[in-house]
């Protein structure tokens, strides 16, 4: 039987990284995600799997270490929280431009600025709309449980290497800090150099004997060639949008109304659904698991069934814009959110549904 453990979401990320054969983790302490770096240091995987764990001098250095590792075709990752992710955005844009697979974990906290260490979902725009410079996309997974924190590490690397694109786990201080039961993924050995040569022949491991030099770069001064590079990226992004949309639905079969929420907010909505249904309000939820690519098609379908939608987000209303784009004016789409580290209660959510959507 699988061993069930009790641990924090941040700890689950660390254990899953070791078990997925990650080659290098490079990070910098910031609340509320420091347990990822601490757990890795405490597990000392360099003695077991050979994984490198390094505390960098800054978030900027850490993301560029990820670039160096990823550029060798290795599984490299970092984690941070909102202000630290802002610092990493230069590097993330370069990773996207050089088409390097890697994992970045953002355990979001309230902002803007130094903000607060309490949970938030206010980095949605930053993550799915760009953040860094240039036309790039970040594969974005939004776990809503400690189990998904563990599961999405492997999934993120699978997708990142499949498409040669950076991937992000976008979570928040609640899921990072809360303890839940979790079944950790089985141990996978790190790739050997021979396996990397097969999986990532573009990785700089020293020029192959008799082969061509490999160059990892995002630079191209000829605009005609640079445009072609952009066309290639966009074609890849379209493929990801077609193949990799993930979401979960609950109570949608008979729903008259729909919550759309990710991560912690989706957990809160589950309780709100119970409360609303006790009052006879048939409400369900669509929980995007991938925030990019976004479940646009499914939301458009559900707009033919339900009378209105309410996005519940710990921000001023960010994902609501993508839901409105998907629904395209067919039904009302409203937003309810708390900001600055405040967490909506299920009661508040039901009241918001009644006042903003049902009326």
């Amino acid at each position, binding site marked *: 039987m699988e061993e069930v453990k009790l641990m924090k979401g941040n700890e689950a990320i660390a254990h899953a990284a070791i078990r997925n054969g990650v080659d290098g983790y490079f990070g910098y302490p910031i609340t509320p995600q420091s347990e990822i770096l601490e757990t890795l240091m405490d597990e000392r995987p360099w003695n077991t799997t050979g994984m490198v764990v390094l505390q960098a001098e800054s978030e900027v250095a850490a993301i560029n270490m990820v670039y160096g590792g990823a550029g060798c075709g290795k599984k490299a990752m970092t984690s941070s929280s909102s202000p630290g992710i802002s610092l990493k955005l230069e590097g993330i844009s370069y990773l996207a431009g050089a088409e390097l697979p890697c994992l970045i974990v953002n355990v979001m906290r309230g902002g803007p600025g130094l903000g607060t260490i309490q949970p938030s979902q206010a980095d949605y725009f930053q993550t799915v709309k760009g953040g860094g410079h240039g036309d790039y996309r970040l594969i974005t997974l939004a776990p809503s449980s400690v189990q998904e924190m563990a599961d999405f590490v492997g999934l993120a690397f699978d997708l990142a290497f499949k498409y040669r694109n950076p991937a992000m786990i976008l979570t928040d201080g609640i899921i990072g800090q809360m303890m839940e039961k979790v079944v950790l993924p089985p141990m996978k050995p790190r790739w050997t150099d021979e396996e990397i040569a097969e999986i990532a022949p573009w990785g700089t491991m020293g020029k192959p004997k008799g082969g061509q030099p490999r160059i990892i770069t*995002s630079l191209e001064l000829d605009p005609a060639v640079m445009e072609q590079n952009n066309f290639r990226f966009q074609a890849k992004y379209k493929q990801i949008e077609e193949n990799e949309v993930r979401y979960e639905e609950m109570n949608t079969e008979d729903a008259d109304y729909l919550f759309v929420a990710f991560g912690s907010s989706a957990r809160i909505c589950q309780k709100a659904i119970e409360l609303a249904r006790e009052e006879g309000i048939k409400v369900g939820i669509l929980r995007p698991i991938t925030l990019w690519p976004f479940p646009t098609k499914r939301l458009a379908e559900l707009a033919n069934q339900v009378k209105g939608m309410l996005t519940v987000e710990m921000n001023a209303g960010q994902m609501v814009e993508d839901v409105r784009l998907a629904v395209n004016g067919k039904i009302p789409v409203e937003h309810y959110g708390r900001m600055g580290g405040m967490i909506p209660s299920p009661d508040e959510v039901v009241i918001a549904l009644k006042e903003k959507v049902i009326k």
Partner: protein
Amino acid sequence: MKSEEIIKPENMVYQPTHLLNETQMHYCPGCSHGVVHKLIGEVIEEMGLENDTIGIAPVGCGVFIYRYLDIDWQEAAHGRAPALATAVKRLNPKKMVFTYQGDGDLAAIGTAETIHACNRGENIAIVFINNAIYGMTGGQMAPTTLPGMKSATCPDGRDVEVTGAPLKISDMVALLDGTCYVTRQSVHTTPGVKRAKKAIRKAFENSMANKGTSLVEIVSTCSSGWKMTPDQANKWMEENMFPYFPLGDIKDR
């Protein structure tokens, strides 16, 4: 008549390293970059490290070094080369890993990455081209611009009261326990080129032997940025740069 017909093997007295490809370099006449590129290629070839080297390219005039030297390369964001090199070397401890960086890249925007890589004693070599100016962006003030020296962003000459004194970053990193070899060289004379090549070789050997961080500063000319002929630039460098950045080993352990 083709060059092979003129140059008969028995008459061959010199040929460039085969790692230096035929791509035409974008450097200005009199620039030191091309000479240092050649030396790096020669050292890698002579050490037999062609298939075991990963170079990290900078942002600045040296950005296209990856087009000229046929080894594996990663192109870093401005100033971040030592961070990339840290991960590349730690994940591939048997490979030779070096960065190639200019003064703006290494001693301004990348100061933190430079100092911390050196302080951790990363087993990498850093080749540092110090020409006291930003070449690629058109001749702006660098962290190593000399007092009174004119540039596009200090047209009246660098005022150290306003912008500080030139940063002696090699002397700074020599103080750190992590560095094993810090030296300052030039490539404007034949003996200088020979000494610079020896220094680069020692730095690369240190990376292979995992001895710590080596930094080879090449005090260089930028005739375009300095608005001089190559010959004038060499003379100006001797008279003005060398007193501030004296040549020779700063640290060797």
